[in-house]
């Protein structure tokens, strides 16, 4: 499943984010040789890793990171309007609340396959598209490797160039890369086609909330994830009860489900006590969850 981590729930993912920054250092600095990002402490963090950044991470059952990507709003500084500002020679990067930038795509284990034979990047891209479309995000722009762009032309995506392929890097002993600024225009048709193309039928976004709910084989529809996110943003004091509730609903075998029903019954009482929003109860219920072993 794909975990969405942002300012609302990152305090539950401290150790995961810690692992992510160390992994990024390993991937981007040690393996790809991006020396400018090198840090003595072994953590790769730049100015785009901030309060507003959303991370998408593919985690296994033991909360180990298999791959990830980040998404930043274009209302602040972006790679395309700072580091790569001279590359958008064909069209500018669109700016606004509906336009985001994606970057730092990495896969730790390219040979990994899920139970249904899906590689990490299928779930990662599908998760990001699901989330972005549910959020009303219209475009995802970013500077990507040319080889990645060529491969993306095989996908049912409206992905266009904002500039020409060009070399980058090459200073401070870095290798010379070859990439270009691109923009992906999002719509539900593209998401549907993508999931059909990759034969993915179930949602891939996880509602696991850190170590409280490590169960990783349940997919939630984006609306549920967003509803939870909004609720936590408004009521951070109820985070633990939400996590417990989500965990209870994530049971797949019959005996655990029975226990879950009991937990839910208990929780309902507590919800009444804490004035839990009824709309939350409606959104996080069994009909809105699908078992996604993909």
């Amino acid at each position: 499943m794909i975990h969405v981590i942002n300012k609302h729930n990152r305090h539950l993912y401290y150790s995961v984010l810690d692992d992510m920054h160390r992994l990024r250092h390993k991937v981007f600095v040690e393996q790809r040789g991006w020396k400018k990002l090198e840090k003595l402490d072994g953590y790769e963090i730049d100015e785009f890793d901030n309060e507003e950044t959303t991370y998408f991470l593919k985690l296994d059952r033991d909360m180990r990171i298999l791959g990830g990507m980040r998404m930043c709003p274009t209302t602040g500084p972006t790679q395309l309007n700072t580091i790569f500002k001279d590359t958008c020679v064909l069209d500018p990067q669109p700016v606004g609340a509906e336009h985001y930038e994606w970057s730092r795509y990495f896969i730790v284990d390219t040979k990994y396959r899920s139970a249904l034979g899906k590689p990490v990047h299928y779930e990662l891209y599908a998760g990001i598209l699901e989330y972005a479309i549910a959020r009303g995000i219209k475009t995802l722009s970013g500077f990507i490797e040319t080889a990645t762009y060529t491969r993306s032309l095989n996908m049912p995506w409206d992905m266009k160039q904002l500039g020409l392929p060009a070399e980058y890097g090459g200073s401070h002993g870095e290798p010379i890369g070859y990439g270009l600024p691109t923009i992906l225009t999002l719509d539900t048709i593209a998401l549907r086609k993508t999931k059909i193309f990759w034969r993915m039928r179930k949602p891939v976004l996880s509602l696991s909330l850190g170590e409280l709910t490590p169960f990783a084989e349940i997919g939630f529809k984006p609306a549920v994830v967003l509803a939870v996110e909004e609720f936590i943003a408004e009521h951070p004091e109820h985070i633990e009860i939400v996590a417990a509730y989500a965990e209870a609903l994530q049971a797949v075998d019959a005996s655990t489900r029975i226990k879950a029903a009991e937990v839910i019954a208990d929780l309902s009482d507590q919800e009444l006590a804490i004035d839990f929003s009824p709309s939350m109860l409606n959104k996080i219920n069994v009909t809105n969850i699908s078992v996604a072993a993909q």
Partner: protein
Amino acid sequence: MYQTIKNFLDEVYTVETIPELETLLRQVLEHYGIHHFICTNIYGLDCLADRKPMFGMWDTKWVNHFINNSYYLEDAVAQHCNGLEDDGRPYYWTELIANKDLSKIQYKIFGEAWDADLREGLVIPLRVSDDELAMVSMAGKNFKQNSEVRGILHTVSMQAHRKAREILLRDHGKQLMPDLLGFVPHPEMKRLTPTELNILKFLAEDKTPTDIAVITGVSIHTVNHHSANIKRKLEVKSLYGAIGKAIRYGLFH
């Protein structure tokens, strides 16, 4: 400066046939001193044999000479493209000559290309997937060579290849993505609103009206209202009939 390439990018989307694409290419490439351009399916495009040209505007005399002498067996350009690391970077012929340990016959091929007025060339690998690789090779007498031109020519090659692939697959009875890009909903399905289509899909997934009301955040009366509209528009008596019709008309592809 970038108007030519911008126009090309706009126009390439509207192209319907390979000859149209070649005409469009000619207009752009002659501007950069290129009169030989060939995009070859190295392997993986099912509707074309391996190493078969996909499109281009090639120097026939040179191509015949190249084939008659079986140069394709040892040509440094093709060999290099096949063995490239997967970074999609284009290479000028002069870079290959300078950096590679070429055999006698490979030098000879470059020499003869020079004599045929193909004095500088650019080779661009286009890897669509692990199983599919194409290669663009272009050359000319007065080839302009700089990083910006390389970016423009790379862009032209990528977008032309994408379009050619789409056309070739279509003409061979296939789709870029089977059953997807060519899928057009039946006219009867077009009469349904997006909300009604959504509800129909939920019904097909064995969701009850109560489930749908919860999922979509509307009242059950609203769901029933939409359901009634679906039955009326599709001229069926029950929602089972509506789902059956939707399946027949390919809604659930």
